[in-house]
């Protein structure tokens, strides 16, 4: 009885405390009671680490009662807008890590004497179940982190962001092998033999504690030994460069590049906190790191003089994408990176092909359709392209078309060589049906809209997402304006498009979380991404939006659709998440269109991803519901 009285007082006090802060102020009474009942108070003196990635999967969820805790990013890549963030009373951590039952990516350090309530991971998960409010809070928190990462990369010039990520790598991580070193009394001949044996460009001279004393590089051999007629039996310390340049293992690749540039050296020694040699970094190590940066790839593409060089760049794009996925970049930036680089690659291929084909005086634009047209390319997309052109005055249209087709054939082949497989459905610019004048395109599109049979609807879903990648963009703009005008007045066509878009429902089950296909997987493209894409296209056509990207279409339409901005961003987040899962499941496959692409086994996802995926499908359902209402289907 007396413990009950005490609990009522103390647990009540915890409850009162929590009620001052979001989301606990909105939490269901039963859930809040559970939290207050289980929360225990701990103390963390100033400077102490509360939680770090090294501690393994997070075992406790903390709510700061008093004091200040700093969250610092520890990874090489800064994916959110803050490098460090100070949390105060009422704020809690870690949310993402404990939800996903993984180690925290941040280090949490008390910057003041701090008191924190804590609950165990199990209690945290139970609380999520118990409280829809808390669940929503955590999910939104994670979503907003993803969001922050997107904004971060959009605001920073994307190029620099990618570069920084590689150039902020710590030197300790770049060291490839154990250092080879000798003591100062070693005979020079023995040292040179060792360099030769290990095929290394420099030899480090250290004391017995492995502290560096000097260095001898290959380029020293000629002037100091050969030309100077140095006696190889004499010890190496007589000819080494003393006091070699050193950097701590925690220094960044950027620091190393700066040091090398400042002192004009090609090798730097990396030492541990006790000054002992950990390894050697050469200029080449840094160069290979930078080569994969966005700028380098771009420069590589722009300076390429043949398809061979572009093939190389195409592999680099892939590698960069894999690195970015590994660093946890959001789907939007990632597809934008890929899209931007693929555009550059396509443009260069087109430019190179023009050297072999005389197109002077022909006004044309190179169309990208489908996912490429929407800026939503994943790693495995085949070509979908076409040409729009205008016949020069006093020229034979068919002759011009022939020249364009011959040119397009080379471009298609070269794109295939660079990793974009030829389209099985022959949706390619070299197809005479897709190498059309502006008027012919209008006629084609007009036919589909006037007679929306199933094939026409399918075509519309591919071709209406066109975008000019190269050439005269005005041609594309004119076609877009015309198309929007026509389709807005063609309510029957839009209605059929909507009916078509409703044919596949998101795989949400009534009893189980997900409805699976026979092989136990979900097709993220067919049952996920496409729902968003189709709905966005219809909305864009109806409201006259010029963009071809799904996200832009939704964003621009939010006012016109009568849907709030928050609702739209929730829908967009859902779309991004599905795209991210697609990219993740693709990135291991090296072949295009492998069977496993786009398929995902929800049981293989962690709890958090599964929940977010479910939420993403709910957003897809919401969009479909909107279409149903709009078109009375």
């Amino acid at each position, binding site marked *: 009885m*007396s413990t009950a*009285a*005490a609990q009522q007082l*103390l647990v009540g006090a915890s409850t009162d405390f929590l009620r001052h802060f979001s989301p606990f102020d909105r939490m269901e009474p039963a859930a809040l009671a559970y939290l207050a009942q289980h929360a225990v108070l701990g103390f963390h003196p100033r400077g102490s680490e509360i939680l770090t990635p090294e501690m393994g999967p997070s075992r406790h969820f903390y709510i700061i009662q008093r004091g200040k805790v700093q969250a610092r990013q520890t990874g090489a890549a800064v994916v959110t807008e803050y490098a460090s963030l100070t949390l105060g009373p009422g704020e809690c951590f870690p949310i993402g890590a404990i939800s996903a039952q993984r180690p925290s990516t941040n280090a949490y350090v008390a910057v003041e004497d701090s*008191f924190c309530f804590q609950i165990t991971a199990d209690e945290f998960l139970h609380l999520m179940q118990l409280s829809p409010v808390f669940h929503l809070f955590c999910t939104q928190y994670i979503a907003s982190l993803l969001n922050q990462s997107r904004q971060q990369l959009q605001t920073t010039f994307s190029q620099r962001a990618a570069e920084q990520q590689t150039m902020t790598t710590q030197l300790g991580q770049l060291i490839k092998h154990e250092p080879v070193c000798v003591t100062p009394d070693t005979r020079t001949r023995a040292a040179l033999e060792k360099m030769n044996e290990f095929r290394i460009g420099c030899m480090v001279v250290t004391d017995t504690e492995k502290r560096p004393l000097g260095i001898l590089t290959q380029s020293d051999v000629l002037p100091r030994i050969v030309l100077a007629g140095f006696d190889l039996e004499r010890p190496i310390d007589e000819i080494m460069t003393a006091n070699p340049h050193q950097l701590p293992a925690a220094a960044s690749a950027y620091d190393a590049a700066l040091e090398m540039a400042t002192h004009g050296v090609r090798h730097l020694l990396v030492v541990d906190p006790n000054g002992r040699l950990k390894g050697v970094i050469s200029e080449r190590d840094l160069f290979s790191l930078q080569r994969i940066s966005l700028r380098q790839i771009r420069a590589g593409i722009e300076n390429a003089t043949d398809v061979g060089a572009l093939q190389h760049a195409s592999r680099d794009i892939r590698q960069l994408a894999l690195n970015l996925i590994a660093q946890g970049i959001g789907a939007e930036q990632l597809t934008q990176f890929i899209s931007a680089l693929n555009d550059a690659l396509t443009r260069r291929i087109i430019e190179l092909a023009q050297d072999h084909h005389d197109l002077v005086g022909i006004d044309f634009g190179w169309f990208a359709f489908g996912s490429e047209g929407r800026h939503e390319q994943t790693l495995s997309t085949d070509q979908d392209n076409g040409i729009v052109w205008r016949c020069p005055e006093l020229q034979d249209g068919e002759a011009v078309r022939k020249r364009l087709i011959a040119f397009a054939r080379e471009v298609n082949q070269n794109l295939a060589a660079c990793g974009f497989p030829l389209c099985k459905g022959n949706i390619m610019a070299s197809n005479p049906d897709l190498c059309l004048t502006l008027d012919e395109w209008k006629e084609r599109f007009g036919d589909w809209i006037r007679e929306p049979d199933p094939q026409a609807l399918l075509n519309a879903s591919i071709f209406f997402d066109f975008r000019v990648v190269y050439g005269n963009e005005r041609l594309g703009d004119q076609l877009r304006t015309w198309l929007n005008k026509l389709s807005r007045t063609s309510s029957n066509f839009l209605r059929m498009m909507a009916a078509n878009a409703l044919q596949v429902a998101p795989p949400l089950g009534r009893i189980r979380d997900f409805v699976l296909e026979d092989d136990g997987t979900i097709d993220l493209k067919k049952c996920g991404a496409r729902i968003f894409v189709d709905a966005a296209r219809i909305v864009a056509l109806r409201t006259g939006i010029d963009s071809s990207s799904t996200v832009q279409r939704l964003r621009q339409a939010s006012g016109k659709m009568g849907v709030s901005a928050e609702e739209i961003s929730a829908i967009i987040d859902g779309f991004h998440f599905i795209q991210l899962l697609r990219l993740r499941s693709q990135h291991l496959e090296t072949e295009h269109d492998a069977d496993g692409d786009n398929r995902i086994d929800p049981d293989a996802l962690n709890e958090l991803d599964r929940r977010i995926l479910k939420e993403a499908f709910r957003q897809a359902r919401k969009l479909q519901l909107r279409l149903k209402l709009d078109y009375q289907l």
Partner: protein
Amino acid sequence: MNWISRFIGGRAEGDALEPGIAETLAHWQALPDADLSRAHFEARYVVVNTEATGLDLDRDRLLAVGAIAIDGGLVAPSDSYYAPLDGATSSALSGLLAFARKDPLIVFNAAFNLGMLEPLIDERLGIGLDAKVIDLYFLMPALFPERHGNPVRLAEWMESFGIETFQRHHALGDGWVIAQLFLAAQARALAQAATSPRALMELERAYRQYRRKA
């Protein structure tokens, strides 16, 4: 409130203990003494605090007792005890003992709190408390001389650490403050390699001796 009312209060319950209480006490007495060499993160401490009509040991009377456990360096609000001493005093006191077990007690100002509590336990339950006690009144200035070099009142430590509570001058309300102070004390003691209850007791004693000499 004088000795008469205390006398009357005492007589009201009679000398013979109720069977339930006697059993609790027997159980408590049979408990082994706490292991004072355990590390903080393994040790259970119990904050004990009282609420009285005033601060005069002779004239004033206890109103309530409160206790909060600190187990493994964490305070669990649900692991706490509170009992008014207005009626079933023996039962309240035996409940306190059962809650505290033989664990080291954390008190702020032992002279007063235990000065009130020990005679009452002796009177009502017929046993000597004889607990291992750590008095934060002395331990705090010993550990945090940069904040207060001399023993000061609880309110000053609250201000120094920015600690708040739901109700001042309440056995449990102040107990909650003491528990939080003790968390800070444990962390500081750990940094000074005082890792066990025994070490804390020695620190406290050394401080008192040093003060007496000074």
